[in-house]
C-alpha cells in the first residue's frame, strides 16, 4: 500500500516537475512552479524578461503584465515598480528587460541591455541571498534525492514487471533527468552521469535476469531516446570536465657544487623548498632508455622551481629549457622560473616563445 502511494506521489511529482502544473484533483489550481526564463549560458533561472524564454507553459507576456506570477519567490509584479527588486547575482552584459520611457512607458522592451557589473564593497558576488536561488537550491536538494529514488525505481521496475518496463523506464529516466537539470548545475552533472552509469550497468543485467529479452531491447532503445529528448536542455549545462589527478612527482635530490659568496648564489639557495648543497631533481628518460636527473633549485608542493639570476640565450640554455619542459610533461607538473626583475622575465618569456615551451611559468621574485 505504501509502495503504491509512493509511486503515485512520485508520478505526481514528476508530472509537476515536467509541466509545472499541480496534479489533477488539486483544488486551488495555483501554479506554484514555473519560470520559463533561463540564462542561455548556464541554464539557471533568471528574472522575467531576462535571459531567454523557454517552454510553452503559459508564461506569455500577457500573463506577466497581468501580474499572474506576482509575488512568487519574492518577485514583484511588472507593474509594481515601487517595490524593491531583490538583486540577482550580477552578471556582465546580462540581457535585462528594460522599461521604455515616455510614450511607451509600461511596455516591456525585450532587447538585451548591457548591465555593468556593480561591485558592492564587502559583498560577495557569488553568494548573495536571493529567494529564487534559495528556491532552486532547496528544490535541487529534494530533486537529487528523487533522482536517486528514480534510479532505484527504474531498476526494480525492470526486474519485476516486464509489461510496464518500457513505460516505467521512460517515465523514470525522464523524471530523473528533469530532476538532474533542475538541481544545482554541478551536482546535476554528477548526478546525471552517475544515473546514466547506473542505468547502463543495471538495466541490461536486470532485464536479462527477468528473461524479457524483447522488452529489454525496447527499454534499452527507449532509454537513450528519453535522454536524447533532453539534449537541448542538457546543452545549457556546462560540460563537466574531469580533471585528472596525478600522483605527486617523485622529487629526487642531487648534490650541488659549492658557490662563491655572490648575490646569485644566495638567490638560488633561497628558492622555496631548497636545501643547502642539494638540488631537487626529476628523472628524465633518455632515448637509450637510461634515466638522468634534471636539476631545479626548489620545490613548492607539486611545482618545481628554477631560479635564474640572468637569462642566457645560448644553446646550452635552450637545451636546458627543453629538458625541463620534457621532464615536467612526463611527470605532469608545471615548472616555475623565478627571476629577480622584470627585464629577466621578459627575456625568459621570449625564450619560452622561441622554444615553444608552455608548461613553465615565469615570475618575478625580488632577491
Amino acid at each position, binding site marked *: 500500500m505504501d509502495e503504491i502511494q509512493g509511486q503515485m506521489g512520485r508520478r505526481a511529482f514528476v508530472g509537476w516537475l515536467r509541466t509545472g502544473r499541480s496534479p489533477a484533483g488539486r483544488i486551488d489550481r495555483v501554479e506554484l512552479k514555473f519560470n520559463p526564463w533561463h540564462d542561455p549560458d548556464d541554464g539557471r533561472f533568471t528574472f522575467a524578461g531576462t535571459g531567454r524564454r523557454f517552454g510553452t507553459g503559459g508564461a506569455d507576456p500577457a500573463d506577466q503584465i497581468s501580474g499572474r506570477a506576482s509575488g512568487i519567490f519574492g518577485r514583484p509584479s511588472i507593474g509594481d515598480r515601487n517595490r524593491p527588486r531583490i538583486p540577482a547575482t550580477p552578471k556582465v552584459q546580462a540581457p535585462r528587460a528594460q522599461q521604455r520611457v515616455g510614450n511607451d512607458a509600461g511596455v516591456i522592451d525585450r532587447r538585451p541591455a548591457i548591465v555593468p557589473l556593480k561591485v558592492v564593497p564587502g559583498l560577495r558576488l557569488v553568494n548573495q541571498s536571493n529567494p529564487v536561488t534559495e528556491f532552486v537550491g532547496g528544490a535541487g536538494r529534494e530533486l537529487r534525492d528523487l533522482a536517486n529514488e528514480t534510479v532505484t525505481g527504474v531498476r526494480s521496475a525492470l526486474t519485476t514487471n516486464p509489461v510496464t518496463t518500457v513505460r516505467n523506464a521512460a517515465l523514470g529516466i525522464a523524471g530523473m533527468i528533469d530532476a538532474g537539470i533542475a538541481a544545482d548545475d554541478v551536482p546535476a552533472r554528477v548526478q546525471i552521469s552517475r544515473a546514466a552509469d547506473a542505468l547502463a550497468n543495471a538495466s541490461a543485467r536486470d532485464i536479462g535476469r527477468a528473461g524479457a529479452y524483447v522488452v529489454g531491447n525496447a527499454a534499452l532503445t527507449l532509454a537513450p531516446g528519453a535522454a536524447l529528448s533532453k539534449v537541448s536542455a542538457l546543452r545549457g549545462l556546462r560540460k563537466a570536465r574531469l580533471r585528472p589527478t596525478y600522483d605527486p612527482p617523485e622529487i629526487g635530490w642531487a648534490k650541488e*657544487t659549492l*658557490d662563491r659568496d*655572490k*648575490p*646569485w*648564489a644566495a638567490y*638560488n639557495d633561497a628558492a622555496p623548498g631548497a636545501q643547502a648543497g642539494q*638540488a631537487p631533481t626529476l628523472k628524465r628518460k633518455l632515448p637509450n632508455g637510461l634515466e*638522468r636527473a*634534471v*636539476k631545479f633549485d626548489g620545490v613548492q608542493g607539486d611545482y618545481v622551481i628554477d631560479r*635564474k*639570476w*640572468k*637569462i*642566457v*640565450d*645560448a*644553446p*646550452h*640554455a635552450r*637545451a*636546458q629549457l627543453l*629538458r625541463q619542459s620534457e621532464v615536467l610533461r612526463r611527470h605532469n607538473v608545471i615548472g616555475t622560473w623565478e627571476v629577480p626583475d622584470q627585464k629577466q622575465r621578459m*627575456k625568459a618569456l*621570449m625564450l619560452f616563445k*622561441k622554444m615553444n615551451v608552455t608548461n613553465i611559468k615565469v615570475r618575478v621574485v625580488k632577491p
Partner: protein
Amino acid sequence: MIAIQVASIIASFVVFFELADDDVVDPDAVAKMMEELAAELETLDKGFLRELIDAFAIVAEEDSGKVKEVVRNIPYRFYLEEALAADDPVRLAELEAIRDARD
C-alpha cells in the same frame, strides 16, 4: 689590449662548457655556470664592457668553424649589448627587433 686577453680567457671557458658533451659536464651545471658568468659580465664597467664586446669579434677570428661561431656569439648569447643599452629604450627596442629577426 687587456680586453682582448680577458675576452680570450672568457672565450676558452665558454667554448669548453658550450661544446662539452653531457657525459663530460653536467648540462645543468653548465647552464648554472653560464648564468653566473652572464651576471659577472653585466657588472663590469660599461666602458670596459664595450671594449670586451668588440674584443670577442677579434678573438673569434683566431678560431674556425663551430668554435668561431660560439665566440663571436658570446655578446649576443649573454645579452651584453642590452646591458650596455640599459638606459636607452630606443637602442633596447632596436636590439629586440634585431633579436626577433635573427631567430
